[in-house]
């Protein structure tokens, strides 16, 4: 077990360096004039351009720039964004917001999605099953760019049940509406996944055996069916958590949460290589850790799975 974890972490280190290199290279390839991008529509004077080019090593080849960046990174220095702010400060401020938002979204989506999926699976072809099918189809098919402003207008501005925007230091309550919006797409997937695997497992031999042994219905479903049905769902949730963090870009914009999404958006717009790489690095780490946790959870759910 321990060896497995260590091996996975070492793989993670490789993935980390590979990913930052690729992202840095992509940012560099896309970069033609970051100083102009920063200045917007105004032409920048030659002197400003010169001084900033030298300050940020913009005239050096890609590999040298990457070298400067990595040297700083290994010393724990994420560097500065093109506007002169420490990227570590930006990370420190943005990650907690996005993390809270994504976790709330996952918890919300998992709670409702799994319960709805289990019920729909047990009562296959009932009205409940059909209704959830329709609702989940609708949820999946509305893009978040439409759903987010719509929910904000309805629940935030018209009904005033929730604050219209969450702001920089959002309360639990302020994050609720954005989390529901963000989790809506996942919720649909979770419930469909759960339903399918519950339906499948209900037909399995071990369930028939358990029933034949005279176990109560609750025990059969709660322990035997659910445990096996959750394996694909948990796998998906693990991957999804990372995806939600990266994908919060729209939700964060609509609800004015200064998180990873908005910083990444700004970084890409202003061709700010170090800024983007800094955020993506952390994203990579989260993906790696989330997937490791998912893999380890398999053993809990299914004792037949062993790690070597």
């Amino acid at each position, binding site marked *: 077990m321990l060896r497995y974890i260590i091996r996975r972490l070492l793989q993670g280190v490789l993935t980390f360096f590979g990913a930052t290199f690729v992202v840095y290279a992509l940012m560099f390839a896309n970069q*033609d004039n970051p100083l102009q991008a920063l200045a917007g529509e105004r032409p920048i004077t030659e*002197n*400003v351009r010169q001084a900033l080019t030298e300050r940020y090593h913009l005239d050096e080849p890609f590999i040298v720039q990457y070298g400067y960046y990595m040297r700083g990174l290994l010393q724990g220095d994420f560097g500065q964004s093109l506007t002169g702010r420490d990227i570590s400060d930006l990370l420190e401020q943005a990650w907690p917001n996005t993390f809270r938002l994504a976790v709330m979204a996952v918890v919300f989506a998992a709670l409702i999605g799994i319960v709805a999926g289990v019920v729909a699976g047990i009562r296959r072809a009932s009205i409940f099953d059909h209704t959830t099918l329709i609702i989940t189809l609708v949820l999946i098919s509305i893009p978040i760019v439409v759903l987010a402003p719509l929910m904000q207008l309805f629940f935030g501005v018209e009904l005033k049940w929730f604050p219209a*925007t969450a*702001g*920089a*230091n959002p309360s639990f*309550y302020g994050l609720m509406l954005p989390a529901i919006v963000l989790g809506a797409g996942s919720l649909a997937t979770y419930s469909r996944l759960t339903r399918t695997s519950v339906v499948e497992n209900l037909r399995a031999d071990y369930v028939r055996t358990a029933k034949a042994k005279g176990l109560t219905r609750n025990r059969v479903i709660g322990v035997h069916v659910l445990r096996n049905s959750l394996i694909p769902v948990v796998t998906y949730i693990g991957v999804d958590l990372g995806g939600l963090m990266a994908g919060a870009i729209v939700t964060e914009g609509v609800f004015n949460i*200064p998180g990873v999404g908005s910083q990444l958006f700004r970084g890409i717009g202003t061709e700010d290589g170090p800024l983007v790489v800094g955020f993506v690095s952390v994203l990579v780490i989260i993906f790696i850790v989330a997937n490791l946790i998912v893999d380890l959870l398999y053993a809990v759910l299914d004792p037949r799975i062993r790690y070597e």
Partner: protein
Amino acid sequence: MRGKTAIKISAGLAATALLVTACGGGGDDEAGSSNAVVSIEVAEPQYLLPSNTNETSGSQVLAALFTPLVDYDADNKPVEVAAESITTTDNVTWTIKLKDGYTFHNGEKVTSDSYINAWNYGSYAPNAQNNSYFWEKIEGWADLQSEDPDEDGPQKAPTPKANKLTGLAKVDDLTFTVKLSAPFSEFKTMLGYTAFYPLPAAAFASEGVVKEDFEEAIIGNGPFKMKGTWQHDSQIEVEQYAEYPGDKPKVQGVIFKIYQALPAAYADLAADNLDVLKQIPTENISSAESDLGDRFKKSAASTFQFVAFPTYQTEFSKPEVRRAISQAINRDEIITSVFKGSQTSARSFVSPVVAGYREDTCGQYCVFDAAKAKSEYDAAGGPKKITITYNGDGGHKDWVDATCNQLKTNLGIECTGVAEPKFADLLTKLDQKQPIGMFRMGWVMDYPSMENYLGPIYTTDGSSNYYGYSNKQFDTLVKEGVSAATPEEAIAKYQAAEDILVQDMPVIPLRFGQNNFGHSTKVKNVEMDLFNRVDLMKIEAA
């Protein structure tokens, strides 16, 4: 917070600090209470240093913290604020006398040195300040710059010859003189810009070096002082400075709430959680009237949008062709259909916000007349195929396509809109004089003067003359305007220069910007100034 249901009560509790303070101050019925704190939308400022700030969010915040030497009256003429008097006899040497009694927020007295040091810092090239070109006209500026010997190559640019402007001289604590390298009649007008604010001695770590974290808690000489520090991506809070000698603002403080995107700010405004939104997003313009009623306001802004001709390309070298294209464009239709009335048609080359503006200087050439346009276009032998290049990152596709469609229909030619990924790409191609066809351009005013709309964009060596336009007579008129004895004489020269543009049409004026702003029910007297800033002296609690 007087809701009835549990949900409403918890909504109140969970609301942002802004909502709470706004309720505490303006929400109650003490009408006109000067304890009110109002909230204003801004984007995250790039910088908060006068010499480095050139976008509207940063200058909005700085406008609260600093008092300029001059401000502008209803006719957009400069009037002294922090300055007692600004005088000159020859338009070269300007004597600036400061009002006594002004102090920085740390108690330090505002003296001539506060200005001289700040301006020297701003113009010294290695400091890479965005506004450094504002001091260009002052004697000695060139010595503070340096040339990179091999352009962008491996060699570093040498240190400039000097680090102080020779044109700035201290007379006494409250008087200093500014010597320009050439006469400029409107120098006083320039002094209202953000770049010309003073800095306290506390800003400098050593001579000529501004402290690294000075921006985080900047100290100014204005009616408001910073409360706490700049909370990045969240908010910047300012409160009244008790020792301020000038007119007092009518509100106790301002919270500049930082938004990542305008639609979020609009939602907050509609929910009454935000007091002033400086720019209503285009997608909400059509509903703003019904959402906000008379709290939806419009005023003139300084931006100017146009399409330009690469006059160095032979097919566009004839003014007749350019004028015919202008006549084939129905400006008003595009404004209604694409911009939903959020901008106004431009039929002059300078914006209505500057002194000397005349309506419809462009005359018949900007009046839509499809039949006339077509016959003149054909007579002049205009190209059968044209393109309009624009930057794809600026949301210009819709109106460029609409313009192209009008040209297709009205001139019977082929027209396509071509997107360059970024504005910088467009500029690069123009710098290399590539044949890119017609292209879109825009202009934001630096200081309210006709010169700012004519000099940089159309003079032969203008810094933003991308069209290769050159007319000796025009250059001379602008130059004469710059060195004219009085602003009135200058305006006469500028207007004569503008008339030449009408004949030559190096660009087609299309639209003037407009401030489309809105405010909550908690504030009144909300006005926007020429620089897209909320007038903080006038705003008060409702």
